[in-house]
């Protein structure tokens, strides 16, 4: 049986994954400490927004294993997987389900965070567009969704441990190097790698940056909010 090293995870996917791990960790630390660290929570939220927007675009325009169509956990695929008949490179149908759950929850956390407030001084960049009660509600969802995310991350780590210990399949290494050794049963099983064009990557990054800038650069808020009242001239008796 012939073995061949192939690329499973492209560089954008790997960077996305590890930057997201870092971002989530630091966001959690910064909000827990609070005080002077709190500004970082907002900045990291902006970074997470950029990452998620990029990942969604890359799910349509990226390399083969990055595409949603490739790992969309349809009932037929899931059935196939549970019967043990699924074969493929990249996310399994069950793994695909986990990816969608993770991305969905993170997207929800990022979107609610845009409107949230911490009851001290931190407010999301879109906070001025909603009423306090709406913001409070969003803050609640933000926190609940984070607990949900922790649960899915725990499952994700358990699955990796299961693969490692029981199935003797190290999933971490390919996520670092991108490469995976697979057994080639026949020539026809050779993968025709579909490479995304560099322009796809550039456009995805550009759109992600644009979205972050529109929201975090206060472009949206300035467009939608009334002009702030001009400051009255300084006088001896201000009130």
């Amino acid at each position, binding site marked *: 049986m012939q073995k061949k090293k192939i690329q499973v995870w492209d560089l954008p996917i790997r960077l996305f994954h590890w930057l997201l791990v870092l971002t989530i960790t630091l966001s959690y630390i910064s909000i827990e*400490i609070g*005080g*002077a660290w709190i500004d970082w929570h907002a900045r990291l939220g902006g970074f997470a927004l950029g990452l998620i927007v990029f990942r969604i675009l890359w799910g349509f325009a990226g390399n083969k294993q990055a595409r949603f169509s490739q790992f969309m956990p349809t009932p037929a695929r899931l059935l196939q997987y549970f019967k043990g008949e699924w074969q493929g490179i990249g996310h399994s149908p069950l793994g695909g389900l986990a990816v969608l759950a993770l991305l969905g929850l993170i997207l929800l956390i990022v979107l609610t965070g845009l409107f949230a407030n911490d*009851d*001290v*001084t931190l407010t999301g960049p879109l906070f001025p567009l909603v009423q306090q009660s709406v913001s*409070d509600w969003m803050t609640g969802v933000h926190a609940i969704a984070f607990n949900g995310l922790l649960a899915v991350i725990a499952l994700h780590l358990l699955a990796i441990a299961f693969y490692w210990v029981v199935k003797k399949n190290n999933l971490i290494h390919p996520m670092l190097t991108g490469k995976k050794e697979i057994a080639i049963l026949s020539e026809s099983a050779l993968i025709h790698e579909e490479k995304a064009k560099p322009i796809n990557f550039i456009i995805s990054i550009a759109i992600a940056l644009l979205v972050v800038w529109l929201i975090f650069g206060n472009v949206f808020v300035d467009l939608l909010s009334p002009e702030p009242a001009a400051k009255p001239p300084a006088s001896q008796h201000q009130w």
Partner: protein
Amino acid sequence: MKKLSLLLTSLALLNASYAYAGPIEDQIKYRQSAYSFIGWNTNKIKSQLDKPETFSKEDVIAAANAIAAAANSGLGALYGPGTDQGEGWHKTRLKPEFFQKPEEAKKVAIAFNLEANEFAKVAETGDPVQIKAKFGKLTQSCKACHDSFREKDPK
């Protein structure tokens, strides 16, 4: 003689009770108003620190003094027994834990008071770098109490 002892007893009782704060709903109202006022002043400082071009030493000092004055006004009197339940301007978010862990409650309350007074001193320097650092400490003391004793969601 009986009348006198009654008078003395009631005087002693009055002395032992909380400083004037009124019925539960008034205490909650004063409390909510005080923290809302503190919040307004905190946000004024925050916005000036975020946009250095709007930074005004006088405004920051005024806001810092307002926070310190509110902190020094004896807010503890507004935390009478039973005030974890009830409505002021809106339903209170004070957790019953506040009364179950009086030592911890006292600690966060004193910490806020200290930070508010320290901050007012640092505000006098007019140095945005020092002010920002101290402001972080101040808001941290707000958060410490919220985390332990304030309901996350409005009830």
